[in-house]
């Protein structure tokens, strides 16, 4: 037990509008809570379901089948160099699901943990970050679909597959910016709870999930890459099938820039609004 005569803890000053100097160090010291909250969500998520964590597998698998049938077999969208359509779809679907789950779950996270926020102090950023961990676990499970499909079509990956973790990280960062922004803004303006599912639905069709970005006319491609997921999904496919699905480099760089800008805005907005969370919830 620490002696009270010599307070060893931090010396804090609380006043209006004071930016927390040790913000990131504070988050680091609360990392235990981050993992506990993520563990809670995982533990609770599949309680009282029959097939449990298998849902993380079934959902993307069925979506892949539907996309393959609708776009590949009925609409007969072309793929470059005869890559099997299922590979194209799963290569786009995995990063997109990662993005949309993070944005969808994290944007609701602060509101749904309102009771915690109103009663206990901890760096608020912990809450959306913990939902990212939860989504990552589902993502790891659904990676097995990719492995299965590659074995089925006898696709041998090149050295590029080693770069896959880099693109997973990029997909995380790309989704984190908008997700953190939305998590904060939803607390203030609940309207955005209805806007985000709509944006995600829309985004599924404007991102190259069911098709390759090569179908976009050359003069529009740079503009198309303003959607940060375009560069990331392209990169994902490139990791899987290598040179057969090339990366459009200027577009990829643009995607990175957009990602960084979103992240900047997201963190800035969150930190500005989070001080008032307890009063708004």
């Amino acid at each position, binding site marked *: *037990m*620490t002696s*009270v*005569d010599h*307070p*060893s*803890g*931090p*010396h*804090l*000053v*609380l*006043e*209006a*509008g*004071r930016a927390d100097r040790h913000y990131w160090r504070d988050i680091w010291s609360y990392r*235990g*809570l981050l993992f*506990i909250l993520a563990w*809670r969500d995982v*533990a*609770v998520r599949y*309680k*009282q379901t029959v097939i449990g964590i298998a849902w993380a597998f079934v959902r993307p698998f069925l979506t892949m089948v539907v996309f393959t049938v609708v776009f590949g077999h009925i609409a007969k969208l072309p793929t470059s160099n005869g890559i099997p359509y299922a590979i194209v779809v799963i290569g786009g679907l995995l990063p997109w699901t990662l993005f949309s789950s993070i944005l969808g779950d994290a944007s609701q996270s602060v509101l749904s943990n309102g*009771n*915690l*926020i*109103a*009663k*206990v*102090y*901890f760096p608020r950023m912990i809450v959306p970050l913990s939902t990212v961990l939860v989504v990552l676990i589902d993502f790891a499970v659904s990676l097995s679909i990719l492995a299965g499909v590659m074995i089925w079509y006898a696709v041998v990956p090149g050295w590029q597959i080693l770069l896959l973790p880099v693109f997973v990280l990029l997909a995380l960062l790309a989704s984190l910016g908008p997700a953190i922004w939305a998590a904060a803004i939803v607390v*203030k*303006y609940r309207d955005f709870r209805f806007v985000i599912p709509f944006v995600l639905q829309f985004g599924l069709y404007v991102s190259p999930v069911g098709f390759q970005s090569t179908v976009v006319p050359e003069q529009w491609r740079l503009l198309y890459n303003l959607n940060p997921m375009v560069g990331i999904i392209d990169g994902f496919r490139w990791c899987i099938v290598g040179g057969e699905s090339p990366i459009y480099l200027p577009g990829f760089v643009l995607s990175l820039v957009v990602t960084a800008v979103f992240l900047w805005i997201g963190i800035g907005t969150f930190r500005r609004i989070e*001080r*008032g969370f*307890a*009063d*708004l919830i």
Partner: protein
Amino acid sequence: MADTVIRAENLGKKFVIGHKIERDGLLREVLTTGARAMLRKGADLMRGRPLPAGDQLEEFWALRDVNFEIKAGELVSIIGRNGAGKTTLLKILSRITEPTTGRVEVKGRVNSLLEVGTGFHPELSGRENIFLNGAILGMSRTEMRRRFDEIVDFSGVEKFIDTPVKRYSVGMYVRLAFAVAAHLEAEILVIDEVLAVGDAEFQTRCLNRMSEVAGSGRTVLFVSHNFAAVAALTRRSIVLQGGQLSFDGPVEAGLAHYTSTLAKSGPDRHWGRGKDTTLISAEMVDQRGMSTERFVSGTPLRLRVVVETTGMPGMSLEATLRDQHNLPIGFYSSSAFNQVLLPAKPGRYEGILSLDAYQLAAGEYGFDLQTTQTNIVVDHKVESAVRFTVDACSPDGVAYNFRQDLGAGHLAMRLTGPLEFVPARSSDAPGNPQLARQSG
């Protein structure tokens, strides 16, 4: 040696609250005010301001110009009636919310307990919830492991530790939750009214635990309406009134000061609003209907209550009688006891609760009033709405004054018939079985 661990300077917290304007239901009226409100909200959204519900905005200072210093190892209670700013102050000290003006300096690790069982998840087992709750309250993993057995022991729910807490009874749930909280280690402990849980035996245990914590040299800030607990646990009191510090000093003087502010409050004080109903005023009246603050034991206890309703059906009026230690001693519910509800037509109503002619012990009393929806959801609650004094309690006019502070309860019990002692019939005498057998 006596370091200052908390120093608050000119602390203030402002809220903006919205009021709904009364509408006469004209469609044109509704449309124009609605459109105006929407325009205003749109403008606020652009400027990044919060959107309070309502048509008219009002600023409200929950806390204003509060100054105090607390030294290491001090045991301080914060008292004041609901809405006086106690919880707001605790929330600022525990970094949950920011002050609008002024500043607080805090030295040392603060652990705050504004509610027991924060973050408990019904689907998780008792064991899992201990770890979850501990982490939320700021305990480290090693601390948690070291304290785990102690916590389970204290809660007394070992047998069900692997059962989801949704299967727990309310009592078990609360005991587990408090057990975690009681084992927090911090230099400064901030505790909101959390002792008012569990059965009497558990409450005693909690109080003992609290005094143990208090005795171990930690700084404790404690909010409670339980005067006995405040007096037992703390040495110094800070009394808040309407968001301002009205007293700071020894605990006995603080409690006396608080009681005197309660007594002074007339029916004109502002009670806030409920969602559908609002208690406007209440007073005790004598037989002739005149307002009074003195109750004569043995006469009907009459409360005149004025209440406003939006016409929401199913609203009930309830009253809780409390003694000088603020412990509840009586309860009345218009819907549960008499199936009487507030009128389902909007408007302002007045009613007189004419209660039994109790022989209340001499001393101070208060009534809490509240309106509830179907007996469950509290709509508007006013603590200490009516205060009154009983000067003397001498049932049947005998010259003996039965006082509350004798510790023998609050009711002088009266006979319904004359009490006579007559020689016992021998057959009824339990002390002499032989006699009984002979006559049988």
